[in-house]
């Protein structure tokens, strides 16, 4: 009977660009409703992006601080567990241990043993209780320290057991106010020391604020300040031994060497635990970043809930829109729109809506972050990662919450849809 061929099928028939245009047009035609619909997504994306960025900013700040100290850094403290950083009697890390490490361990740049003690420090009538640390000149190398004014402790100071002191920036402020401390005399536990330098301000790590510390030559600390607590059985005790490895790659090797030397020197049996603890800066870094990223992800997840709420808002409005446009759907089907044409049309609309909300949310977040930055409390920039996550989620929300209304539209019977008024 027929001359026409059997049904041919073509994949074409939907034009994404055109549908995006139609969706944008519809959005502009109903600005208030569109804005209200997008509000949830705007808030959600803004919260997610802001929190992620702030979290990343905090993480970067902490990382920078720890890395500023130097990632090649290794710290050895007495005792098998991390309990206290200050030396107490009964500990067994000695100056001779430090000397042995310096002599035997390969791939290290410098070793600096320290002796720490709490002390009363005073300049004229200004007094404070703080931590005084006996240091070797190597400490400045290890920590990359540059005095803001004056100089750090030299080998001559150590050899001559000079009574000289270098102040942390905050200690200098507290003792001297605006005065230049260089050349002036302070009293540490009533022993007179000449100030030779003030350190630049350093980042505080947790509860340790090195800006309040005061540094003196190690030999002077034993002789003038330790009053016998620094020596046991002819051995000088140390609070910590700091080591700088040549490279980051060498750290594991250096730690292994240090452990074997100390175990040998402390005459530990193979079944005995270490009586000292080795901490690498790398480990600290890992701990700090894992804590901050957990926090960040947690906060972002909470923010994600508002994104979910935004998605439900989009679904509601789209359902209303499907009902309002039943006739249009009928017309489109009558002239040959297939199921997937209608599905795609409505999906594109919801995605355009939520993606636009996402972009607005990102822009808003940028403004919020700029405001935060201007207060100077924190430096948090819109990270590309946060933008990507925020935008990606807004698109996903559009697809996910558009699917149900779009499917409903696509399932309408052409005759019933056409009859709808």
């Amino acid at each position, binding site marked *: 009977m027929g*001359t026409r061929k059997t*049904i041919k099928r073509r994949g074409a028939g939907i034009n994404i660009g055109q549908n995006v245009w139609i969706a944008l047009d519809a959005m502009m035609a109903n600005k208030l409703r569109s804005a209200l619909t997008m509000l949830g997504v705007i808030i959600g994306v803004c919260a997610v992006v802001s929190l992620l960025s702030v979290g990343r900013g905090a993480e970067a700040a902490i990382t920078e601080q720890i890395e500023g100290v130097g990632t090649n850094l290794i710290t050895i403290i007495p005792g098998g567990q991390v309990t206290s950083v200050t030396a107490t009697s009964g500990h067994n890390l000695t100056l001779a241990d430090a000397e042995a490490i310096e002599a035997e361990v390969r791939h290290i740049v410098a070793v600096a043993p320290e002796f720490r003690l709490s002390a009363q420090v005073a300049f004229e009538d200004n007094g404070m209780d703080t931590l005084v640390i006996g240091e070797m000149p190597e400490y400045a190398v290890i920590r990359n320290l540059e005095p803001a004014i004056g100089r750090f402790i030299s080998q001559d100071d150590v050899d001559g057991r000079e009574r000289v002191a270098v102040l942390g920036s905050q200690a200098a402020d507290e003792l001297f106010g605006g005065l230049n401390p260089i050349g002036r005399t302070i009293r540490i536990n009533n022993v007179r020391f000449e100030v030779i330098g003030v350190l630049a301000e350093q980042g505080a790590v947790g509860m340790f604020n090195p800006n309040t510390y005061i540094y003196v030559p190690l030999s002077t600390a034993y002789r003038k300040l330790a009053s016998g607590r620094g020596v046991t059985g002819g051995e000088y005790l140390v609070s910590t031994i700091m080591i700088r490895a040549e490279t980051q790659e060498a750290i594991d090797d250096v730690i292994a060497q240090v452990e074997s030397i100390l175990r040998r020197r402390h005459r530990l049996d193979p079944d005995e635990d270490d009586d000292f603890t080795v901490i690498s800066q790398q480990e600290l870094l890992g701990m700090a970043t894992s804590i901050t990223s957990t926090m960040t992800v947690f906060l972002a997840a909470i923010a994600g809930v508002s994104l979910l709420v935004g998605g439900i808002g989009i679904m509601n409005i789209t359902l209303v829109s499907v009902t309002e446009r039943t006739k249009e759907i009928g017309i489109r*089907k009558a002239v040959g729109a*297939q199921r997937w044409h209608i599905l795609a049309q409505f999906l594109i609309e919801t995605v355009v809506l939520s993606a636009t909300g996402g972009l607005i949310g990102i822009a808003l977040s940028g403004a919020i972050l700029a405001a935060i930055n201007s207060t100077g409390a924190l430096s948090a920039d819109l990270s590309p990662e946060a933008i990507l996550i925020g935008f990606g989620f807004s698109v996903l929300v559009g697809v996910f919450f558009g699917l149900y209304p779009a499917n409903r539209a696509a399932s309408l019977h052409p005759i019933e849809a056409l009859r709808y008024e």
Partner: protein
Amino acid sequence: MSERVVIEAQELSKVYHMGKTEVHALRGVSIQVREGEMIAIMGPSGSGKSTLMAILGALDVPTGGRYWLEGEEISRMSDRELAIIRNERIGFVFQQFNLLPRNTILANVTLPLIYGGVGARERRERAAKMLEMVGLGDRLGHKPTELSGGEQQRVAIARALVNEPAIVLADEPTGNLDTKTGAEIMSLFKRLHQERGITLIIVTHDPEVAAQTERVIYLRDGRVVEPPEGLLTGAKPQEVDDGHPEDD
């Protein structure tokens, strides 16, 4: 008119379920339409005209019976296949025009071509040509709401024709128009029929409209019956052509 059969329908029935009651809108309708025919479907309100048109237009499927369009059986097709049939083989003109109000008339006429996968440029050209043919070539950028009813129906006709369908179905196309405008639409249909050999089925209550066709199919209670005496001659006898070609 050629001998080629465009529509072959056998014993079409349609039952609507309204809760517990069944409405038999069609009770075994058989019709045959040849290429190039112009046919009127008449009958009292509720006799099943629109139901039949929906099935012939692949907008709906019959409950029983079989329907071939250009030799292909439509009555058992899937939704997707029906959509393709509507798109490629059928032009539908509605009483309420059914244009997208927010789109220009050019975009409205373009719509079937979009779903047919025709390229943008060709779409525009073909749609513009159709609108020119129905006398709206200078209104392409207008919205339907800026046009009169008659003009809107012309747009709908252009849309129905743009895919060069095998058949054009019009369900009371003049029902929403005043007599003068209705007559204009009818003369447009006639012109298209004569100039382009379009196969046309028009549902109408208006004997004057029916009189301009070549054959009348009369429905009553979902069945094809003999038209009542004087159906076409009653209204304006002097204008009616005799001897419109009834099939045997």
